[in-house]
């Protein structure tokens, strides 16, 4: 085994949260090393135009995704079933290389609603304990919205998020989201221009008395310099955003917002092709001594460090904690243990909206996040759930993120999937169709969790992570309710035809259908070490010199995209490390 010189801080994984920790902790003057299993990549030459405008290579074959041949997960629907490998990409996509999924994300940039962070307390106070099904184990984050607000703002200013405030210091603002928590400052950039589909959607929603607003987008609407001094260029609505790197320097990613500054710091270094296999512990099991990784030549390398940041993406974080024996693995039979607990996903529905030839949508004009309109009236606890019998909700999304024809062309309902009739429909509808979708929360349950697979291994011979997941009654009800509201909006848009994709009771989780890469839980944060793996600063209760960033910390899933919250929590954690932990290493919350 090769042994490297010790560093103050080692970061496992160099995606969104690894980059944030890298720049914040190196700013404190300590030595920081990031280990990334993938290669280096940057806007130029890797994502330069025109090669990046290649739907097959990036959108379909997944050039930027984690290669599943080396490492994947296994999936089963219920405890007791045999899990099988997720052999091809479908349901979710995983990031790889420098920047992680932060390079090929869409940039849909949300804050949580205040109640999302104290969800159990909020639901109990508003509806009573009995409103929650017995096997639902939702929890509070241990951090309130007001505590988190400055960090949510900081991440938006780093990303150059384009949007319009709905609630500035308690005053509702015309054209923004009236349901959002108070923000102290307006978004750093104005909204991206609406696509035509979004405009039709917003007009219809307004007619019905809803409150549409432009989706907050980390696709810069104008030239922008962020607080670190990194510069972004204006988005040109090219339609190659999610699944692609951005050739315009418009989409916020570690490459556009952090690396230009961080890579020049003498006390920061990055080692690529370094695949971490475990976090090493001393003989007490209460202190991490560093990490072990496999380098490009296949050699085992030991990297000693005083502080370990686990920033490898939700699923990989959970797996590394299990492989390293940190914290007690969760047991669904007894409900005891914390690592792997409360895995959750999201539930979407979508409606294809087809117009006549006089309505030109030009669906290829799109951004991953900007240019679409949102109705948030039925998300979180923005409406009274008492008579509906479910918890949580979804936002409704109107417009499209691009019109790439292999993946994003849709045909009216009843069209055969091939042959002359399919071709005619593709020809007639392509320019004249758009999408309305719902993007919904999923609660956490006693029998939905992550552990190590007993059978399948990765390329290094280590057990794969096993997902045990299926939908619950609450989520079917949620999706049906919000989708019915979405259908009302679609009817009001007066299309020629519309198609519906809704998950109904009895439909199992289908790993073949892409929904979102917003998987959550497994190393959750909270106030009580018996029910959470991390304290409110994302510090391991069991091994206090280990911090774990990313959506693995979410006790249940939100209706929103996670990265705004992930970024906020990471900045809060970084501040606590800088200002408290580095001066006096040890637990930041006493038990």
């Amino acid at each position, binding site marked *: 085994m090769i042994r490297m010189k010790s560093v103050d801080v080692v970061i496992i994984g160099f995606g969104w949260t690894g980059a944030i920790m890298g720049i914040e902790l190196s700013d404190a003057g300590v030595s920081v090393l990031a280990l990334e299993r993938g290669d280096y990549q940057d806007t130029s030459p890797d994502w330069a*135009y*025109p090669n990046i*405008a*290649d739907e*097959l290579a990036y959108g*379909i*074959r*997944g050039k930027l995704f984690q*290669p*599943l*041949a080396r490492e*994947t997960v296994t*999936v*089963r*629907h219920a405890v007791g079933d045999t899990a*099988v*490998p*997720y*052999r*091809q990409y*479908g349901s979710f996509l995983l990031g790889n290389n420098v920047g992680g999924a932060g390079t090929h994300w869409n940039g849909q940039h949300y804050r949580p609603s205040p109640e999302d962070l104290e969800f159990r307390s909020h639901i109990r106070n508003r509806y009573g304990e009995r409103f929650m099904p017995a096997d639902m184990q939702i929890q509070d984050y241990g951090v309130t919205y007001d505590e988190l607000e400055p960090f949510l703002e900081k991440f938006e200013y780093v990303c150059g998020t384009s949007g319009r405030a709905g609630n500035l210091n308690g005053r509702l603002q015309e054209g923004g989201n009236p349901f959002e928590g108070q923000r102290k400052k307006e978004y750093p950039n104005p909204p991206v*221009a*609406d*696509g*035509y589909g979004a405009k039709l959607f917003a007009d219809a929603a307004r007619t019905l008395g809803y409150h549409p607003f432009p989706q907050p987008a980390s696709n810069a609407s104008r030239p922008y310099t962020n607080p670190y001094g990194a510069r972004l260029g*204006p*988005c*040109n*609505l*090219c*339609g*190659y955003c999610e699944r692609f790197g951005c*050739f315009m320097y418009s989409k916020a990613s570690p490459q556009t917002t952090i690396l230009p500054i961080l890579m020049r710091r003498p006390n920061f270094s990055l080692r690529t092709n370094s695949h971490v296999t475990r976090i090493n512990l001393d003989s007490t099991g209460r202190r991490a001594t560093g990490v072990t990784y496999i380098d490009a030549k296949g050699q085992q390398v030991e990297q000693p460090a005083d502080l370990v940041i686990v920033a490898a993406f939700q699923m990989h974080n959970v797996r590394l904690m299990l492989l390293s024996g940190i914290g007690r693995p969760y047991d669904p039979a007894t409900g005891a243990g914390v690592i792997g607990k409360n895995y959750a996903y999201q539930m979407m529905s979508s409606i294809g909206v087809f117009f006549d030839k*006089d309505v*030109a949508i*030009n669906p*290829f*004009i799109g951004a991953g996040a900007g*240019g679409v309109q949102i109705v948030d009236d039925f998300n979180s606890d923005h409406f009274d759930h008492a008579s509906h019998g479910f918890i949580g909700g979804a936002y409704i999304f109107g417009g499209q993120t691009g*019109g790439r*024809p*292999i993946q994003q*062309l849709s045909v009216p309902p009843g069209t055969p*999937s*091939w*042959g*002359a009739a*399919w*071709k*005619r429909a*593709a*020809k007639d509808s*392509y*320019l004249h169709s758009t999408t309305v979708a719902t993007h919904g929360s999923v609660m956490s349950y006693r029998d939905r969790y992550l552990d190590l697979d007993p*059978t399948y*291994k990765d390329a290094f011979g280590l057990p794969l992570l096993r997902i045990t997941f299926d939908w619950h009654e609450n989520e079917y009800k949620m999706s049906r309710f919000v989708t019915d509201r979405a259908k009302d909006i679609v009817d009001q848009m007066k299309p020629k035809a519309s198609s519906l994709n809704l998950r109904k009771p009895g439909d*199992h989780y*289908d*790993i*073949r259908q892409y929904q979102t890469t917003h998987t959550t839980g497994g190393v959750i944060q909270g106030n009580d070490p018996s029910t959470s793996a991390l304290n409110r600063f994302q510090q391991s209760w069991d091994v206090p010199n280990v911090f774990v960033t990313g959506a693995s910390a979410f006790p249940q899933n939100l209706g929103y995209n996670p990265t705004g919250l992930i970024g906020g929590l990471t900045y809060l954690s970084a501040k606590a490390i800088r200002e408290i932990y580095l001066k006096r290493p040890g637990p930041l919350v006493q038990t």
Partner: protein
Amino acid sequence: MSNKPRSTQRREFLRKSLVVVPAIGLLGPASLSQARSASIAFTEAAYTPRYFTAPEWQFLQAAVDRLIPSNEDGPGALESGVAEFIDREMETAYGHGGLWYMQGPFTPEAPPTLGYQLRFTPRELYRAAIAAVDGWCKKQHNMVFASLAQEMRDEVLHQLEKGQIVLEAVPSQIFFAQLLQNTKEGYFADPMYGGNKQMGSWKMIGFPGARADFADWAEQPGKVYPIGPVSIRGDKS
């Protein structure tokens, strides 16, 4: 686009292809059945398959020709080069199963919602399934798939799609789904992968390809974007 040798060669190739393609395009849908052998002959002349054997190549062309037929709406899969696209894909890491997790044990009896669980890579899947479908066609109709009349070919494809034909080697629905997915990929992907010749499918639906710059057009609601497609290698139309 600079005048690099590659783009010159490309234009030269396209120009030569153009001589042949309209000849098929001129034939109405009614005469396509007779035109089938002619169009296959054209594709064979233009491209020699590297992975597929002669009988497999016949199958592939005869199948994609029905999945996206040629007619007055726009080009079909055959003259778009979809068979060529699929053949070329078989030689990539994708075709070799290099993008998929391919370690056993394999449990093909797992619920379909848990995704692909066969031990076949894409190229193995095509090889096993084409032989099986041709075998089935010979038993039922005394002819391989490519020799069937187009209505019969459609019928077989429909049955494969619905899983009504039981093949020993592979579940027919899984093979059909793979074939249809690759056919649409070849039809709509950038022409540099061998399909979508002359960007015919893009022109048909109105997709501008790799143009990727619409800042000035977002706020022109109701008007169809007026500029034709461009490919990654700079071919315009």
